């Protein structure tokens, strides 16, 4: 038998709402119902005006991030059964401007991801004739975890420093720098160090660690940033002995 969950959703329709308002729905659910499924039920059966983002339904695309009872979660990876007996409050991802209902404007986040040169850089151009670049499992282990990011933005919603000042490069982008800098196929570390060394780079982090708690893919951006601080400190000492920099 299906149980009923009371779901309150923070609505914002820019053409009619002056500011976001709460609206509640009663949604039947069973053991398998995810929050994303429940939103689908609301949209299909109760209120077609509700807006939210989704695509893969399996924690791959990173589009369904939202605040669930104040915690950043993927709607498709959180289940109503875990909130049984309680109430569910859904809001748009914290620290991002709301575009409409649960949809946020991610442009700042995407711009940051793009700005840090998230691709393999080689000093000499390579051609197909050079053959493949091999890597040992151990070398791959150095960066693999940090390459699992799906760009969902949950870590930015969880980060109090990004919330206070969005100039901060932020967890996912800094983890991405770490991912490429530690790939043996890459030679672009020198170009990326300047993003790390800035005040808004790793030094904007005070090691709260919430990014790693909420990450749905086990990326551990906090660890990447701490390792980045060590790299940046080394780089700082080295530049003191390099004249003209």
């Amino acid at each position, binding site marked *: 038998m299906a149980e009923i969950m009371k779901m309150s959703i923070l609505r914002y329709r820019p053409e009619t709402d002056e500011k976001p308002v709460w609206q509640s729905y009663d949604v039947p659910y069973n053991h398998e119902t995810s929050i994303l499924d429940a939103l689908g039920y609301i949209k299909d059966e109760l209120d077609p005006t509700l807006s939210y983002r989704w695509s893969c339904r399996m924690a791959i695309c990173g589009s369904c991030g939202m605040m669930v009872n104040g915690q950043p979660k993927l709607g498709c990876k959180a289940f109503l059964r875990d909130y049984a007996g309680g109430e569910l409050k859904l809001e748009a991802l914290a620290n991002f401007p709301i575009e409409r209902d649960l949809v946020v404007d991610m442009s700042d986040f995407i711009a940051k991801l793009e700005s840090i040169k998230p691709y393999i850089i080689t000093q000499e151009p390579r051609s197909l004739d050079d053959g493949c670049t091999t890597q040992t499992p151990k070398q791959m282990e150095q960066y693999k975890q940090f390459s699992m990011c799906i760009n969902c933005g949950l870590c930015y919603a969880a980060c*109090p420093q990004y919330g*206070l000042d969005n100039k901060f490069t932020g967890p996912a982008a800094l983890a991405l720098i770490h991912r490429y800098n530690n790939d043996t196929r890459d030679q672009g570390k020198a170009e990326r160090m*300047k*993003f790390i*060394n*800035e*005040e808004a*780079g790793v*030094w904007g982090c*005070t090691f709260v660690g919430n990014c790693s708690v909420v990450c749905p893919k086990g990326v551990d951006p906090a660890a990447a940033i701490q390792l980045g*601080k060590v790299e*940046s*400190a080394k780089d*700082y*000492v080295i*530049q003191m002995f390099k004249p003209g920099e």
Partner: protein
Amino acid sequence: MSRSHEPIFWGLFGAGGMVAALILPIFIVITGLLYPLGIIPAELLAYDRIFAFASSWWGALILLVVICFPLWLSLHRLYHCLHDFKIHAGVRTQTVFYGIAYTATIASIVLVLVL
């Protein structure tokens, strides 16, 4: 894009963290518990013994490490807490905070040398 000078303060902060985590608890247990509760005999911490300790070069070094690094740790932490409390401190506040740590460091070095 400008390079942050944070590595210097982060280094001192890190060193302070190590001292505060590993050495300070021992000092607190000795001077805050064992000594007042009479578990270690009072003569062990008698004035002339402590004075001799502070006057030796290694004693002075230990005192400096135990006093100065935790100072940098706490002032660095307090400075960053201001930001967390939405007090957006500028260079002047930064100078005051690190200035306190700096002055206290110099003062301890001088005092320890005088001893």
